[in-house]
């Protein structure tokens, strides 16, 4: 769902803040340009590339001979410029740039300010006059020139409405398919050759609702998940139904819940102040690979605020995301939360000073505290599978089925299924040695997924007490 992020209706402008990779070639004016976009590996030809705001991208495109082309695009305005001789904007180089932008490639540096040549060109585009003689000012016929902020806002709203309309169409379609499924019975979904899910997921991608598409694909895997699948299937169908009906009734929802629904459906939002400055302890950092993209998840605990925050960072498949914060280090930094989803996700802002190591564990709660926090979080986001929690003083214990984390009060949380087959489980057991320790992880309806642990206190005073990453 990450690559195909669309714009949030309220703040979108132009041709979309970020198009999907698949979508880019659709605007290519001829077959040759289309091929050019598909040339993977064009990334290394770019230098000095960057992006500012949501829709301005630029870069220097090496050509093999002569100086590189200066290429830039203003997606808000649908304007392009390039030093090449192509007569049909967007030229292949501009399309490459769009593909890089859509793929969130690391070669594009986020900047506060565009370089002078881009700024000059933008002035020309946005000021309504394509300044003659400005460097690379070949804003072609594709450059739409309008005459004021009012028009731009109106255009943005029109585009947002268009996308919302598509999603609504998709949601209605999905609702129809779900009710048809329930009318005929879930037993039909067990048929392994059933193309329903792939086809429905593709329909949701068309409707620009990647969040719905993702859930639909996961739904397709439930029938093969072993005993008790009909109950799990009904749960997931019901939650998907809840999500698409929530979208269809978005206007009647309170603002925070509406933000959650928008995020869940697959619209991107941006972090909104106020930023929280704190000494953030890094609880966990791990990568979730996908076919096209690696998502790095970093969990932070605010030493002063007590807040938990999740940072996401992306890298192209096979590449390490840029953000690297080792478990157990502390950064003095500002984190700005994103709307929706209980405001868990944050964006790392300004950092103050160097990170330092702090081996002391975060304050932990009981098993009941962890479940209660999950229950509370469901009020803000009923689609949550799990919520972060620090368990203090738990002992991993083998049970009839899998493992449990047993608290001092003899209550326990089962270790979640997927975590049972990971090497991290045995690291946790080895670290504990049968003694209570502090564990950070995600607590949800499937159990507890341990992500990091702090070793038990040692009376001999020997040895480091550094936290150990479990994933």
């Amino acid at each position, binding site marked *: 769902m990450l690559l195909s992020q669309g714009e949030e209706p309220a703040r979108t402008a132009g041709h979309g803040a970020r198009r999907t990779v698949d979508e880019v070639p659709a605007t290519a004016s001829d077959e040759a340009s289309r091929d050019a976009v598909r040339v993977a590996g064009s990334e290394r030809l770019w230098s000095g590339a960057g992006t500012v705001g949501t829709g301005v991208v630029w870069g220097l495109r090496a050509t093999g001979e002569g100086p590189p082309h200066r290429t830039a695009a203003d997606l808000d305005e649908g304007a392009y410029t390039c030093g090449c001789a192509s007569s049909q904007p967007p030229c292949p180089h501009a399309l490459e740039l769009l593909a890089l932008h859509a793929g969130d490639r690391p070669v594009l540096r986020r900047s506060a300010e565009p370089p002078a040549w881009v700024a000059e060109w933008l002035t020309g585009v946005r000021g309504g006059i394509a300044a003659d003689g400005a460097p690379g000012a070949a804003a072609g016929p594709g450059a739409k020139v309008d005459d004021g902020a009012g028009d731009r806002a109106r255009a943005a709203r029109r585009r947002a409405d268009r996308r919302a309309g598509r999603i609504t169409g998709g949601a209605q379609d999905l609702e129809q398919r779900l*009710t048809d499924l329930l009318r005929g019975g879930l037993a039909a979904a067990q048929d392994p050759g059933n193309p329903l899910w792939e086809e429905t997921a593709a329909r949701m991608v068309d409707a620009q609702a990647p969040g719905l598409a993702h859930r639909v694909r996961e739904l397709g895997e439930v029938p093969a998940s072993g005993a008790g699948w009909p109950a799990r299937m009904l749960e997931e169908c019901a*939650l998907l139904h809840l999500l698409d009906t929530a979208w269809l009734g978005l206007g009647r929802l309170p603002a925070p819940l509406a933000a959650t629904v928008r995020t869940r459906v697959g619209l991107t939002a941006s972090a909104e102040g106020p930023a929280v400055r704190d000494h953030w302890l890094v609880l966990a950092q791990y990568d979730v690979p996908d076919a096209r993209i690696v998502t790095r998840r970093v969990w932070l605990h605010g030493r002063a605020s007590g807040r938990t925050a999740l940072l996401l960072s992306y890298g192209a498949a096979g590449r390490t995301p840029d953000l690297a914060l080792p478990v157990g280090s502390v950064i003095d930094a500002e984190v700005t939360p994103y709307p929706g989803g209980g405001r868990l996700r944050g964006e790392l802002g300004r950092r103050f000073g160097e990170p330092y190591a702090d081996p002391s564990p975060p304050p932990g709660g009981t098993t009941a505290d962890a479940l209660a926090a999950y229950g509370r979080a469901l009020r803000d986001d009923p689609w949550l599978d799990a919520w972060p929690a620090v368990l203090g003083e738990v002992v991993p214990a083998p049970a009839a089925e899998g493992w449990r984390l047993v608290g001092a009060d003899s209550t326990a949380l*089962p270790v979640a299924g997927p975590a049972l087959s990971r090497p991290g489980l045995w690291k946790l057991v080895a670290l504990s040695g049968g003694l209570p320790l502090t564990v950070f992880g995600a607590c949800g309806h499937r159990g507890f997924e341990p992500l990091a642990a702090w070793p038990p206190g040692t009376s001999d005073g020997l040895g480091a007490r550094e936290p150990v990453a479990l994933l």
Partner: protein
Amino acid sequence: MSTTQTTARAPMDASWEDLVTSALLGTDRRPLTAESGDPAGPAALLDLAALHTVRRRAALRPAIGAAPPAPAPADPRPPLPAAARRRLAQLLADRSAPPGGGRRGTAPDLTELIPQWLASAEAHGYRAPAELLPALLDAARARTDLRTHVLAFAGPRGLWLAGLNPEWRFALRATARGAHRPDTTDPEAVRRLWADGLFAERVALLGALRERDPGAARSLLAGTWSTERAEDRLMFVDSLRAGLSDADEAFLEAALTDRSRNVRATAAELLSGLPGSALAGRMAARATTCVNPDRTGDALAIAVEAPHECDTGMERDGVVAVPPSGHGERSWWLGQLVEATPLGVWCERFGGRGARELVALPVADGWGGDLHAAWCRAAVRQRDPEWARALLGTPSTPPANGPGTASLAQRSTLLSTLPPAERSLWVADFIAAHGLSEAFQLLGVCPVPWEGPLGRSVVDALDIARDAGSYPWSFSGVMGLAERCLNPAEAGRLDVLTTTPAEPEGASPGAGGYWSEAFQRLVSTLRLRAAMDAELAPGAD
């Protein structure tokens, strides 16, 4: 399209099971009845199911705790320095990485360094980091050659952890030094474990007791000997090998009449290692009727008259009557008699001549090979360095012309009876004289790291092989050994060899480049080993 195709609301009190049944069979076939009495449609069912789902998730309660495992025994060893811990994690991570495939290139082969790293860490007496225990046990599970070191390093917590995961059961079977040693100080506990224990526990108990009090171990074994199963008796009698003394003779002599042939053979072998034993005397008596001084010629020689039959007495003393195919009966019997005869007997028999003189004597009628091979086995069995030296001869003599044996396997076992420093010197001289092509097995018994003359010999021989223009993979076995065994201090001397030399005439094409690569790998491996050792030094943090 409308989202509320069915306006009738599903009954709020429908149970989750009702909902699942209706969903599974379909609302057309199995409708829920709405509060109004009308059948509720699929949308109403989904509404209600969503409510159930979120309500259930929001109201989850902790389970009742399972019984935690008993805490792991304390491990008083000091923790690893941080750099060494990172290194171990890296070595173990590399092990599980898929092999690069193809040529080895210039990078060190990290997996080959794990045993060495473990041995040094163990020598320093460090405690294994808890979080790396799973990876250590996985490594030992895949590679049996790592097990002893891993289990010693993993210590009590490693064993505790292995008890919780069936995949690591091997750790419980193995009786690693210090890791799983039964307590032998309480006679009552010993008696109880010996009476009721599992086979592996009893073997471990017997071994531990034998180490502390050989006589007590023998008595324990004698007490139940007649009731033990044959294959168990074999393992038990073999455990007397440790701390063998004349005090064991009576017990072993009795075992010569055991029902099991393997037990008899083992007892006979052990007795022949006791030069003062009655069996050794009987074998000497038989052997000396076959092997005698021959004074008929101008010079003293050795006359051999191999046995013509294998009587029941010989069989009782462990002589195997039927030779393996391709072996003559008489030479087979002769070999066994000489092998079990105390070597001192021959010096007496030949007028006080020493081993070196005896080995140099001509042997009549082509029996030399059989006689010398039997002496080699006897020297190894009786751990007699004097005879081993004589049978090895001088290292510069070509193997085919030397005394004793030309077999490299036999030579390496002979070498292993010599003091370690002497072994290295002998092999160094051997390599200086004959090069590396036959040195692999002999290098295997030399103490590591290869110091002084041995290290120089190997490096010089590699240099010569390179100049001769052959390909380095003809020496890949020795190269691999050198990477692991050369003293890291040699790295400096090797640097000059890493350049690509001009190809000598008649050289294999491209060999120079491959040699340069092989030497670069050798140097980088030695440097890495030096770094590993430095990280493990106490106070390295």
